[in-house]
């Protein structure tokens, strides 16, 4: 659009400022923290939290990479039976939010848990160990995050250019050597993207580590916000967590930053399929086991609780299940998610347009980068930041629906932004120029040409922000006004007090609401999108 430069700067700077405000407030708040508090934080909290968080993030990243990579390889390059079914089914665990997965597993394992009941019902009395602590948290986070890695690596394997490996083979390289020096480097961008995603995922997780009693930065911050009567330690810890996140992003940037790994032309030809021979059946069993663990078992557990809630009424009638409150919290979730998604799309549209069309403008590039920053930060940190923003600026709006919406918007802005800029990227500048030559005003061009052409991208951006907001936990939990419980809050309040029967119904509703997510991902995959 032929806007004046100051206007362009203005738009992108304003959006960037809104998105960066929570971050700035955390730092500002931390600047006011007493020296003695900093000292206590550094000596008593940071060391063990640092060790715990790093170990967890590393383990989850490695685990998810191996699991996702192996599954992607099996699906793309081997003669695994039932591939047409497995390929999309392996993504479906995404529809279960991680904390619900944790909730199911904590109660499936352990003495007298759901698992032991199931096995003794089947006539196989076994004792299952409890899975609290590090190993359980790592297991659940791997199970919850491998679908991302699987999707990314699978697309990368799918698009790999065989001419390289063939050339290597002609030059006399053995299979192992080809794998190490040709195929792996080609997959490196996918691998780093996957590992940063899972690393951030593990670092910012709140629900799983709390339910599995494994203290990390995030759970310690939550504990401080809730248990103490001021934010000072929470504030200091948040600064460390922020620093830590930057470090991770910086490492990723230096790892992949300026290198290019793609071939100039993409020669998509059918690839040779490796014959698994005797390993076919065990491989299929492995895939089935993953699907059971990620999808069937948790949903089964939730259904069992719903069933027992409706049949064997608890001897204590202390918290009656009510359809009315369930519907109310469902509507609350829809309300928050709709407002967030709409605002996110509206705000990211101009910034995305400018950042695509003015690629070489440094100012706009930096603002676009700053605006996307909230995605890398843990939800609890964003929530704390927004709470501080309101405390400093408009105290009356603290703990309101507006606060939740702004927190979610800051957190998920990047998701919408990425999709919309991808959409705008596909619209040729020539089309705009043609319209302008034919006498359309710049505004009309934007409305008639751009908006119409990127409608699918707008819709998928809206949908992904909507669904992410529906499932988000810590911000909704911390910032909600009185009487405003969303589905996630409902699940959390019930589950953290051990009322699983009450948690089951909202959890199932939440999973059902996530179905479009699974559908859209599978749909994309089917088209072979990278």
């Amino acid at each position: 659009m032929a806007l004046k430069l100051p206007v362009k700067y203005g738009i992108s700077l304003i959006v960037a400022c809104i998105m960066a405000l929570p971050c700035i407030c955390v730092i500002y708040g931390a600047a006011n923290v007493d020296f003695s508090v900093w000292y206590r934080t550094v000596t008593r909290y940071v060391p063990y939290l640092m060790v715990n968080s790093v170990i967890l993030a590393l383990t989850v990243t490695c685990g998810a990479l191996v699991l996702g990579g192996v599954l992607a390889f099996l699906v793309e390059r081997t003669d695994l039976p039932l591939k047409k079914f497995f390929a999309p089914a392996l993504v479906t665990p995404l529809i279960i939010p991680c904390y619900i997965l944790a909730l199911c597993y904590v109660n499936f394992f352990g003495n007298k848990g759901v698992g032991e009941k199931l096995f003794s019902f089947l006539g196989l009395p076994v004792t299952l160990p409890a899975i609290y602590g590090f190993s359980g948290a790592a297991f659940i986070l791997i199970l919850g995050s491998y679908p991302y890695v699987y999707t990314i690596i699978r697309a990368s394997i799918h698009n790999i250019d065989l001419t390289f490996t063939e050339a290597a083979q002609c030059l006399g390289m053995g299979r192992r050597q080809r794998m190490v020096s040709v195929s792996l480097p080609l997959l490196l961008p996918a691998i780093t993207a996957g590992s940063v995603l899972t690393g951030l995922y593990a670092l910012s997780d709140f629900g799983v580590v709390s339910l599995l009693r494994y203290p990390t930065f995030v759970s310690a911050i939550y504990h401080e916000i809730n248990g103490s009567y001021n934010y000072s330690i929470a504030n200091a810890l948040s600064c460390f967590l922020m620093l830590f996140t930057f470090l991770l992003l910086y490492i990723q940037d230096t790892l992949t930053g300026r290198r290019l790994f793609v071939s100039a032309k993409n020669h998509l030809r059918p690839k040779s399929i490796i014959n698994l021979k005797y390993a076919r059946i065990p491989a299929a069993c492995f895939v089935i086991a993953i699907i059971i663990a990620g999808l069937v078992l948790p949903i089964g557990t939730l259904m069992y609780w719903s069933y027992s809630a409706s049949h064997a009424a608890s001897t204590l009638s202390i918290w009656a299940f009510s359809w009315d409150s369930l519907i109310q919290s469902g509507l609350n979730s829809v309300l928050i998610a709709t407002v967030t998604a709409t605002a996110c799309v509206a705000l990211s549209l101009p910034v995305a347009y400018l950042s695509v069309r003015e690629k070489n403008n440094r100012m706009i590039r930096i603002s676009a980068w700053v605006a996307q920053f909230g995605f890398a930060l843990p939800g609890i940190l964003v929530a704390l930041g927004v709470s501080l923003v309101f405390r400093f600026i408009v105290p009356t709006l603290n703990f309101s629906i507006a606060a939740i919406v702004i927190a979610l918007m800051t957190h998920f802005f990047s998701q919408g932004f990425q999709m919309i800029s991808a959409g705008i990227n596909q619209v040729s500048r020539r089309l705009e120029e043609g319209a302008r030559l034919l006498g359309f005003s710049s505004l009309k061009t934007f409305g008639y040409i751009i908006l119409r052409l990127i409608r699918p991208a707008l819709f998928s951006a809206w949908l992904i922000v909507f669904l992410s907001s529906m499932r988000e936990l810590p911000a909704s939990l911390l910032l909600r006004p009185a009487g405003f419980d969303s589905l996630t809050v409902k699940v959390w309040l019930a589950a953290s007090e051990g009322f699983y029967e009450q948690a089951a119904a909202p959890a199932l509703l939440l999973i059902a609401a996530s179905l479009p997510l699974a559908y859209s991902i599978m749909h994309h995959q089917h088209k072979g999108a990278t």
Partner: protein
Amino acid sequence: MKKWLLLILVLLQFACARYCAAEDNTLVVFSARKQPLIEPVISLFEQQTGVKVVLKAGKSGALAQQILHELTAPSADVFIAKESGALEYLQSNGAFASYSSEATAKIPSYFKAQDGSWIGISGRSRAIIYNKDLIDESAVPKTLDALTDTKYAGKIAAVNSGNESLVAWVSALRIKLGDEKTKDILLKLKNNDIALLSDSHTDVRKAVGRGEYAMGLINHYYYHLQKNETDPSLRNVGIVYLDQQPGGRGEIVNVCGAGIIKNAANRRNAEQFIDFLVSPDAQKLFAEVNFEYPLLPAVETHPEVLESLNAPGTSALEAVRIMEIEIDRLGAELEKTRALLEEVQWR
């Protein structure tokens, strides 16, 4: 795509319709008590008075911070806390409006603030829950000092410092025994690998019920909640009140209490709610549904509670040997207690 948009629009309209229909006759209650444990009382209040109660359940630290930040234009009318320390803390920061009436006068003065800023609504005592499969009643320690013996290493579960009742318990010990002795006890427990599960007693009672730990430090009513689990295999637990021998220190009996927020928008409803909380109807609910000690002398303690105290026909407040401290002193000790817990790494 259009179908999706339409569906979401319809849902939104429902949501809006519900918000617009908000009633004026409301009362906003902030509760540090768990939602399941306070909801029966609130719904009875709604039935009796027609006032619509808006509830925000959360942790007392977060709720107290919100109240202190909204002092000029509070969104809450009433604050319900799990123990007197949080109430005293808010009182000392000027968050409460004092209130007394005929109904509140019937509560013994031990269980309320001297200036009428808050009032106790139910009593609870600390106790030990134990799993009968793992430990015999005779082997369960009967005093706090015996509990720190190394032979119980790895067998005890408790909550971490995020739990208000635990903080109040440590404050009480500090008042009664002094800082050194209290620190000594806590460190001994830590050295015996006491498992600090989370900030919720529910986790402790469930872990003991499942047989993961032989004993757990709880508030007494968690034992009764465990006793009433749906699954009979989880009910094989017992309870021991510490230091009950003649001349013993006794257990701390703390209160769950409520106060009216200063400048509350719905002051009349708030007063009505406080009167209701100490009325026989509500006290009976606390006693019957939550197994707590009713503070109104006329209301009977739950028979299961009396049975566990071996004192049928009396009341709990007579049967339990109560540690002699002033519970309205706990608030002033809050910061020091938290510092001590941080020092011994009770997390």
